[in-house]
Every structure is written in C-alpha cells, then in structure tokens.
C-alpha cells in the first residue's frame, strides 16, 4: 500500500495554459448544458398535462405549510392549506381575467375547447381556418348550441385556448372520482380542492391547437421582412451605396496615416483557425493519397501531382503564418500580407449571398433527429478534443524529453502523459518493477 509519491508538478506557465484551456472548455460545455436544460424545461412542460395557471415553484409556501413532525398534518393545517390554495388560485384567476363558467361534463368541455378555438378563429380570420379544424367543428355540431352559451366572451382571441370552463370542469370531475385511484396516498391529498388533475395533454388534443390570428399576422409579416432584407442585401440597394461605403472606409483609413494593414486580434484568430483546419485537411489528403496504391502510371502521375500540389499549398500556408507572425510582432513593416481579401478588408457586406430567412431542415423520425443532433455534437467535440490533444502535446512532450528519465517524478509524468495523450484520459497504464524476486 505504500505508494511512492506519484506527484508531478507542472511548471507554472505550462500549468496555467493547460488548466486555462481545459477550464475554458469546461465552462463552455456548462453554458451549453444550461441552455439546453432551459429549453428542455419548456419542452417538458408542454408535454405534461395542460392545466392553467399553476405556479410551478413549490418553494415559498413550504415554510408555512410544513406540517408538524407528527407525520400527518393536523386538521387545522389542512384547513389552512385549503384556504391558501384557494386564495392562490383565485389570484391567478383574476390575473388571467378568466370568468367562471358553468359546469358541463368533461368530454363536452374538451370538445368545446376545440370548438371554441375554431369558432373564434373563423370569426376573426375566416379564410385562414384550416380544413381539419372545420371538420372538428362539425363533429361537435350536435351540442354546439349549448356550448356557445358557455363559451366565455373573449376580447383577445389568444386567451381563448384554455377556457375557464374546462378548468372548473375538470376539477369537479376529479372531485367526483377523487377516491378512485388507490395509489394516491390520501394523507397527502388533504382535500380535493387542489386536485386539479390535468385537463388534457398535447398528445391527446395537440392537433386541435390553433395559432391566434394576431400572432399569425405578425409572424408572417416577420418572415416577409426578413426575406426582403435578404433580397435587398443580395442586390445591396445600389452600387452607389456600396461605393460610398468603400470610399468612406478608405478615407477613414488614410486619414489615420496607415497605408498598410495591420491584422487585428480577431483576424489573427480567424486565420489561425483556418490554418489549423487547413493543416488537418492537408494531412488527411496526404494520407489518403499515400494509402492508395496506384494501379497504372497515369494514376501514379496523378498521385505525384497531388503530393506536389499539397507541398505547394503547405508552403503557402507557412508563408501566410510567417506573414502574420511578422505583422503581429512588427518585425516587418506593415505589409499587405494576404493575397486574398478577407473579411476585414472586404469593403462591405454586399457580396454575401446568404439569406436571413431560415431554411427548413427536414427529418422523418425521432431516431434520425437524434442521430443528426448527436453527430453534430460529436463533430464539435472531436474538434475540441483534437485541439486539446495538441495543446497537451505541446505542453507535455517537451517536458518529458527534457527531463532525466527514471525517478518517481518522471514516471508520474510519463504515466499521466500516456493516459492523457494516448488514451484520451480514459485508461491508464501500470509501471511494474521487474523484480528478480518475482
């Protein structure tokens, strides 16, 4: 059990760099996770039972409500709880501007919800009502008259979807059948008041939903405007405007007395990234070329050409890097370093052909969507992993070769480095002493 000291302390600058890199990656992941979780919460809520106005936070009332330790809440507690719940519900109701509606039986109320939605829609935007909504309406025709009377008058159509009638109604339904499910712990359910069981789920009634007219209008206007924006950009109003902008930029630049171009930090970053990608792609291309055995001399010639062309390209990349480095450290006077106009020197956004309108991404099954999303994430993760691998290589390999081999510190370094660099940190190796005793 007596282990030798297995520590290896990194030199400060190396440590700072490595830890900062990994920490940065960790923070980024955590942020993405947080965002995902937020949107998950929304989606999950949608798939749960749709019941109106239920405050999701359980917390605030815990204190007052906490029953005595004697396990079961006393009658007093129950009463208070009931009042509290009633008060809360009332508050919510008032806030929502919902009026109390009469009692109906459950099924008819659900139909009426749909029906109300449809009839509301037809009233305001008759022409847009989709056909299947109509069929639902006709399906419910027999009771239509009775329902009409109970559908509360609404001033804004978008509030209509969950009518008060439904809500009241289901509550009574639950009251009636409250003692039914044997699984419910009666002690936990002090009164039927708070037994607002779900009205319906998206699964059951989702297809009856209707987007409010005002929203539909705004949304279509929105997409029209974005489309216009795209088209105007494509043509970039006039050449005159473009020229004016270019001229302005030029004047601005010359007024400062700078002739050349100094790369900005953002540019350097951009270049570094593209060069990194270039390096990877070039290497892959080389490997592909080297791994295929040419069958005839034409192919061999083609292969040769590729390799030589790759050499040229690598040379260009290196040249670019040197240029950048020089420009940044100012060993060289400002120069026009990139042959190709890049973003910063592009005079204006005129030549972009991109569109601001969303494109549809069509998927056919959950599985496919999952595969797509996972792959996307995987690719991003692999890129990150490769980046970290390179950072670690640059940090650790020189350390190992610069130290006297043997000794516990060196071994500790080697073991950890092996695990990190060769096994993605997932496995480790054991170093055994080759004892003659064994």
């Amino acid at each position, binding site marked *: 059990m007596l282990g030798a000291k297995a520590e290896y302390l990194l030199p400060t600058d190396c440590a700072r760099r490595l830890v900062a890199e990994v920490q940065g990656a960790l923070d980024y992941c955590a942020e993405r996770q947080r965002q995902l979780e937020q949107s998950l919460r929304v989606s999950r809520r949608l798939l749960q039972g749709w019941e109106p106005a239920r405050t999701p936070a*359980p917390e605030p009332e815990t204190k007052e409500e906490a029953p005595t330790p004697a396990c079961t809440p006393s009658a007093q507690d129950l009463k208070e709880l009931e009042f509290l719940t009633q008060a809360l519900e009332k508050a919510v109701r008032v806030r929502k501007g919902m009026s109390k509606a009469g009692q109906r039986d459950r099924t008819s109320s659900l139909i009426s919800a749909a029906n109300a939605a449809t009839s509301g829609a037809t009233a305001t935007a008759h022409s847009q009502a989709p056909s299947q909504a109509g069929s639902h309406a006709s399906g419910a025709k027999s009771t239509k008259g009775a329902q009409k009377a109970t559908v509360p008058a609404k001033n804004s159509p978008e509030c209509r979807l969950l009518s008060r009638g439904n809500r009241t109604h289901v509550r009574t339904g639950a009251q009636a059948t409250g003692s039914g499910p044997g699984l419910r712990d009666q002690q936990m359910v002090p009164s039927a008041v708070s037994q607002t069981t779900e009205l319906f789920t998206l699964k059951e009634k989702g297809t009856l939903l209707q987007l409010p007219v005002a929203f539909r209008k705004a949304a279509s206007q929105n997409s029209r405007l974005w489309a216009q924006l795209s088209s105007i950009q494509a043509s970039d109003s006039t050449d005159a405007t473009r020229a004016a902008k270019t001229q302005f930029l030029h004047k601005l630049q010359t007024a400062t007395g700078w002739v050349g171009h100094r790369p900005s930090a953002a540019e350097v970053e951009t270049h570094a990234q593209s060069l990194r990608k270039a390096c990877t792609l070039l290497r892959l291309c080389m490997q592909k070329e080297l791994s295929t055995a040419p069958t005839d001399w034409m192919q061999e010639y083609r292969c040769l050409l590729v390799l030589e062309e790759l050499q040229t390209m690598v040379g260009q990349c290196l040249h670019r890097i040197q240029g950048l480095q020089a420009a940044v450290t100012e060993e060289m006077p400002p120069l026009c370093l990139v042959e190709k106009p890049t973003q910063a020197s592009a005079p204006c956004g005129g030549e972009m052909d991109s569109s601001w309108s969303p494109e549809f991404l069509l998927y056919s099954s959950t599985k496919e969507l999952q595969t797509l999303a996972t792959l996307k994430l995987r690719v991003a993760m692999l890129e990150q992993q490769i980046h970290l691998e390179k950072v670690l290589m640059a940090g650790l390999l020189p350390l190992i070769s610069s130290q006297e081999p043997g000794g516990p510190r060196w071994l500790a370094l080697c073991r950890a480095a092996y695990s990190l660099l060769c096994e993605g940190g997932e496995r480790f190796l054991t170093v055994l002493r080759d004892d003659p005793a064994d």
Partner: protein
Amino acid sequence: MSIVTVQLGQCGNQIGFEVFDALFRDSHSSQGLCSKRENETYQASCKERFFREEENGVPVARAVLVDMEPKVINQTLSKAAQSGRWKYGQHACFCQRQGSGNNWAYGYAVHGPKHEESIMNLIQKEVEKCDSLSGFFIVMSMAGGTGSGLGAFITQKLQDQYSSSLKMNQIIWPYGTGEVIVQNYNSILTLSHLYRSSDALLIHENDAVHKICAKQMNIKQISFRDLNQVLAHQLGSVFQPTYCEDGSLHYRRNPLGDLMEHLVPHPEFKMLGIRNIPQMSENSLAYSTFTWAGLLKHLRQMLISSAKMEEGIDWQVQPPPSGLPPLGKVSVHKDLHFNTSIANLVILRGKDVQSADVEGFKDPALYTSWLEPVHAFSMWKTQRAFDKYEKSAALVSNSQLLVKPLDMIVGKAWNMFASKAYIHQYTKFGMEEEDFLDSFTLLEQVVASYGSLGP
C-alpha cells in the same frame, strides 16, 4: 432523465427489489415534512427516474432482471407483485436454468456471449421506454459467478453500445471471512474489468452493512433482507431527488451525471463508498432528536476515521495540520488511520436544511494535495425529509476507504494464484493465466494510486 437498472444474479435481484421498494415507499410516504405540492414534484422526479407508468396506472420499475437460474427472479417478481404498489415489467426478465456456479469465467465467457443478444434486447426495450436516458445502474455482487462474470460482460457491452450513457455499478463486496471460496478471484476479475468499462463503482461491503444491522439497527437475527434494506436505504438517500443548486427549486435531473462529474473523473479512482447518518431502529428513533451540526460533525469524523457507521467512531483521528509540509515520519503514526479523500459529495435531506453548515467538509486537509476543495467537495440538498428521518445526511466518498479491503482481496487472490489453486476451473472456460495477471496488474496500480493520495 431516467436510469435503467440492471439486476444481475441472486444478490443483484434481491437488492434491486429492495431499492425500488425503498424508493417507491419513500416517495409516497406521508412523512416528507413538506408541502403537498413539493411532495408531488419530488414524487414525479423520483418516478421519472426509476419508474414508468403502464396503461393501468401501476408504476413499473425501469429495470431488467437477469439471472441464470429462475428461482430468485420468480421470487423477486412475486414479491413486487405482492406489494401491490409497483411491479416489474412483464417482459423484463431473462433467466436460464443453470446458474454460473460461482465461476466468473462461466458467467463472463459462456453465459455472456451466449445470451448477449437476448439480454441486450431486453435492455434496449427498456431504454426505448425512456424519453431520456441518463444511464445504467447495474446491481451485482462480485463474489459469485452470474453477478460478477455476466455483470462484467454486460457492463462492457453497455459501454460498447451506449458509450455516452453513464454506467454505475453497484457492487456487493463479500464478507471478509468468506462466503464463496473463489470470491477473491471472482472479485479481482470483476473489479479489473469494470475499471475498464464502468464509470463508477459504488461499493457496499457486506461486513459493514452487517455491522450496521447489528449495532445501529439493533437487529438480533440478521437476514439478507435486513442487509438489503439498509443498503437500499443508503442508495435511496443518494438517488432520491435533490435540488439542482443552491436556491434552486428545480429538482436535479441527472443525478448520476452530477455525481460522476464530481467524484470520478480520474480513470484511476473510481471506487465510491456511501456513509449515512442517522441510521437506527424505529424504536430508538422515537427518542432521538438531531441537529444538523451534530449530524455533520459525526459524518465528517466517520469520513476521516474510515468508520463505516456512527457507532464506534474513533475521535482521535484528525486531519494532518494543513499547510505544513509533512515532516519526515513525525506524523506517520497519527496519520495512519486518517482517510484522505479525493472528492466527497454530501447529501442533506430534511428540515431546516438551509441552515446546515458544511464548512467542515471544505477543509483542504481532508483532501489530496492536488485537488482543492472547490473541485473536491459538493453538496446536494432538499427540504424534503427522507424515509422516516426528519433530518438525514449521506456521504458519497471517493477516498482511501476502500483501498484496504481492495488490498486484502488482491493479496488473498494473489496467494491463491501463486499456488495455482482453482485455476483449472477458470481455464476450462477459455480464460488464461495471462488474464489473471492483467487483472492483478491493473488493481495493484489502483491500490498504489489510492495509497499515494495520503499526506
């Protein structure tokens, strides 16, 4: 997020049942000491994680039962059905006629490949019933043949097939005085294989649980059911819902992920132990009151003195003075019993939980020199009381706690291996001595790595 439990072998199935029963009973208990609404959220959170609902409304455990002989599975199914509260899935069982005969190689190399497809299909069906899968909880013993051998095999297949899902193996560590003669072989084979394919090994020692039954629970004649219930209580105290973070009202969605991220990121340190407090018979409970300060003080001392339960804590053990570099051998004697942690997770449940002060666990002296408390310590909590305790605390610890038992097992297995005893029982199913050597090598490293944590 849901967890799919895989119960393997006699031990795994018996424990799995008690765990589900404990989870269900607690989440439907009236003793949560919280508002009805909160209780419902708690219940829903527990349910999402461990149960699904069938058409008739009876919750069904998200579990797959695997054994190589039918007796235990039949027994487990009928116990669940008799409870009337929850049940196992109708087609969630896989069993054969003949057990693995305490032979790891038989479970791993014969039963495993032979039944891989059927078992993995069952698991996949269960996975498909989850909206979202957080990971797998694999319950098994490491002494026998089916739990250990087949368990190691299945864990590996899960790793292959669900590489991004988490895998936690709940492992029962056999009695030190022996319950299966080849337990040490089976154990080293199991542990070394799981070290490669699992993310975390949550370990319960039969000896420790036995002592808790005797000393804390005051049970005179202790049955396996008693042991398993203590164990289920401990697991429940970890996996029942807790809030996401300080001040949040949302329940944590992926406790398995949170736990692993906090406790087992390093590939050489995957062994976790659970301690919890209070744990006592119902009779004594009626006469006891607890304060958070008291509970946490005891729990901390349990941690640093490697005590497995509240009774008989050695209060002499103290962390080495922090900040000072260890001076030669001066403090060796004192530190001998000090248990150095890599990382700890404290879980608090019950009344006034916001007033609990866990500073004592943030002392850098408790942890290995290379990990600061900010990385090494985390806490979960909820106001909802757990089981029948008004206040309770659990500790999941990645520390040297288990290195001694591991060292013992490796040593004993090595002694047996040196005499070549029982090797023929393994080689007849295609294992080689080389496989044993690989296992020894890996575990010797684990022992050494844990050993080198200390001050």
